[in-house]
């Protein structure tokens, strides 16, 4: 999967039912192309185009996640980090948890 050290390695995880949109795979280790500065917002579109298997409207709404999906970067709420503006760092773990499933 990885192609040398030139890309940005991050870990993307899904939980709380969000993984159902990604073939039930909860953990994805990815290497993002080194051609740009990666923000969370850019990552969302990358996920949509590269990982998402079905029903994009259940994951994205406009240029952010669908309300009801929580985002944590290295176990911290993205609302503390500037949300979509946050700049990804090498080795970051980004977790998406759906609050919309079950009760």
């Amino acid at each position, binding site marked *: 999967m990885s192609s040398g050290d030139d890309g940005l390695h991050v870990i993307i995880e899904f*939980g*709380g*039912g969000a993984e*159902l949109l990604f073939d039930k795979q909860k953990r994805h280790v990815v290497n993002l192309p080194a051609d740009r500065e990666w923000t969370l917002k850019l990552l969302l579109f990358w996920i949509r185009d590269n990982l998402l298997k079905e029903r994009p409207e*259940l994951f994205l709404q406009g240029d952010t996640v*669908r*309300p*009801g999906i*929580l985002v*944590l970067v290295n*176990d*911290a*709420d993205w*609302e*503390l*980090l500037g949300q979509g503006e946050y700049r990804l760092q090498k080795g970051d773990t980004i977790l998406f*948890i*759906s*609050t*919309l*499933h*079950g*009760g």
Partner: protein
Amino acid sequence: MPVLCSAKCGNNAILKRPKTGDALCKECFYWAFETEIHNTIDNGKLFKSGDKVAIGASGGKDSTVLAYVLKLLNERYNYGLQLFLLSIDEGITGYRDDSLETVKQNRDDYEMPLKILSYEELYGWTMDSIVAQIGRKNNCTFCGVFRRQALDRGAALLGVDCIATGHNADDIAETVLMNVLRGDIARLQRCTSAITSGEGSITRCKPLKYTYEKEIVMYAYFKRLVYFSTECVFAPNAYRGHARAYLKDLEKIRPSAIIDIIHSGERLQAKGTIKMPERRNCSRCGFVSSCEVCKACVLLEGLNRGMPKLGIGKSSKVRLQQAEVNRLKTRINF
């Protein structure tokens, strides 16, 4: 770069609270989360010492967190409660089978007795067999109506004083909106109370009434509580309805919207002169009902007579015919 905890404990914050906007660290979040639930229980007088309490357990996030927190608070504040888990097995292969495994895990982890009651025992029908009979169109109606009564029946079997359910602030705000849209004054008045009781029906309470869904999920995540989250196989695209989507959009613009809607609902009062529909007991099964025969019994009759459409939809022909018959009866009597 990291944000510090608003409680000035010196730790890094891990979450922004939707209700207050505070940034809290893990430990301060746990404390705030648990203390608020304790306050809901305490202010609302949800329990008495010595009560036997059945927790309606689905294996989902809300009831899993509720079981964990009730056990913790019962010990921390000496409530003196005897806690049970009560689960309903709708008989949906591949959905309930898996979530019941989660409930059994809760039973072992929290050392609480578990009672599982199936639709088959209660009604003679599993959801699988109902769907085989009626198709997938109205099956959610059957499932919902049967579940509500199933908890009451299970509680009666266990001999408990009260059923605690995992309804959270988002659920209650959603219900307030729905009842406003439907103009259902009676339900609007009842749906915001943290505790409801009536003759012939067991007391129900909602300790998570003021607890945001976001915080429930965050709490479960940080505490590593295992819960079951998948879609019902019979309604895989349902997620939640329009009211929920609307509420989540509101929350995004103004996170306090959820608690504001609950507070508004609490303050809405119908004038004393407005006649409320009376609640009585079903003439067949004895459970609380707003009609002569409760909805569960009507649906069941339809299934057993091979007329499953009976009782579905407010404008259904069956019901109109029934209303006509009743009107004629009234005329004859008076």
